[in-house]
């Protein structure tokens, strides 16, 4: 078996003159929870549509679960659960009828267990009580859950979820997150597209960042975090003195920030141990109100990667 659950080489999609996805080389290892990040319009959904074979790529190739894709879609796709571009069901059918219809379309699904499987999936997302309601009467959160339930009708090796928490309230977001974690714990690989960084920080093991159609970064989250350089931050009433002490210790890029009532000095400690800095400050009589070693959060890292604010896109 191939190591990666999703892999692509030079995947490109051009719509007339606009290049939506430009030479993307994805590598999602098996068992990972892969956060596919990017601002709106950066080509995440187009990439996912290509991965599932809904649209053909202009150039490049890709494989799912180690099998080349469009050729083996018949064998591979039944093992892939997908949520693409939000939930979509027949409004005049009940939630259960909608799932039964999707199950009926799957030739590898056993019709004898269909009802049990549908009810189990509905139960897992907490929709069993509303199973007989028409889809039209569902709230956005319920629709999103129904779409998630559809991916759980059969045991899946890979889940490709496009913004699964879109439009959900904080409570629903948390529930969806725990469902995803539970699925990943069952051994499925999850590829999750999102523009919410908190989501990535909480559940993902790997990250890929898209920007203007290009994959600008792809790494395990731990590795990205390790690259982040921590800064020290000293809260004090005498920022000038603190800055002098820090500089004297060999701390680089010392910046004194004077804010109303909360003066702080920050700097890159380099090899200087934090406890030494505190000792030196106290020794020199600088009144220290607070001291912290701060690693830059993901948001700052991604802004530096994409070169602009996270919700702005060209």
């Amino acid at each position: 078996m191939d190591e990666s659950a999703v892999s692509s080489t030079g995947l490109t999609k051009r719509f007339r003159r606009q290049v939506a996805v430009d030479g993307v080389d994805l590598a999602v290892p098996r068992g990972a929870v892969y956060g596919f990040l990017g601002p709106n319009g950066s080509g995440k959904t187009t990439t996912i549509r290509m991965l599932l074979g809904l649209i053909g790529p202009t150039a490049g190739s890709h494989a799912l679960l180690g099998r080349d894709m469009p050729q083996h879609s018949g064998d591979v796709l039944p093992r892939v659960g997908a949520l693409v571009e939000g939930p979509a069901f027949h409004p005049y059918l009940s939630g259960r009828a909608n799932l039964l219809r999707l199950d009926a379309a799957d030739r590898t699904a056993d019709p004898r267990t269909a009802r049990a499987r549908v009810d189990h999936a509905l139960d897992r997302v907490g929709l069993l009580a509303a199973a007989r309601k028409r889809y039209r009467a569902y709230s956005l959160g319920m629709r999103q859950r129904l779409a998630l339930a559809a991916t759980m009708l059969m045991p899946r090796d890979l889940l490709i979820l496009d913004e699964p928490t879109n439009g959900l309230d904080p409570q629903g977001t948390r529930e969806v997150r725990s469902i995803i974690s539970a699925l990943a714990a069952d051994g499925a690989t999850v590829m999750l597209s999102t523009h919410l960084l908190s989501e990535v920080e909480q559940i993902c093991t790997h990250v890929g960042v898209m920007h203007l159609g290009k994959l600008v970064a792809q790494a395990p989250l731990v590795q990205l975090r390790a690259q982040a350089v921590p800064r020290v931050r000293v809260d004090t009433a005498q920022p000038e003195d603190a800055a002098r002490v820090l500089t004297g210790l060999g701390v680089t890029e010392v910046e004194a920030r004077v804010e109303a009532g909360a003066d702080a000095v920050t700097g890159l400690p380099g090899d200087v141990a934090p406890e030494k800095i505190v000792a030196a400050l106290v020794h020199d009589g600088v009144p220290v109100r607070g001291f912290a070693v701060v690693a830059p959060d993901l948001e700052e890292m991604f802004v530096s990667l994409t070169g602009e604010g996270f919700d702005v896109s060209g």
Partner: protein
Amino acid sequence: MSVVEATPAPIAQRVKPRRFSTRFYRSELMLIFGRRRNWAGLAVLAAVPLIIAVATKVWPPTGPANGGGPDTFFASITSNGLFVSLAALTAELPLFLPLAVASIAGDAVAGEANLGTLRYLLSVPVQRTRLLLVKYAAIVAPMGCSVSVETNIPTAPRAESPTAM
């Protein structure tokens, strides 16, 4: 929401893809006949022979020997009940029936694409050819049935009492 402590998973074993199965076809039929809109259309179609029969009963046509044209059918209804269905078919075939079928058929693929359910079907996966064939069969077969029902239902009571009209 019972997330992790859900009921134990039912036996979800993959069966070998069956060569032939009517399951998706039946689901497609359910989709067509599960809509009230489609039932209303069929009811309108079914009402045409009744309306013709009632109309000819209330206002009998002037006579059977009026020369050619569709009037011959309508005039013959008074003497033979079989002509109700024939007359209804001649009225429906050029316009109403194609209209009804077209509205359902037009909705078959375009409607799914519009709702977005098509992308979920395609990622199940359902092969494009299979999808089109199943959709085609699901529209053609019931329409054929409805035509044959239409020609038979009005004649049935009349077979028992041929002189009713």
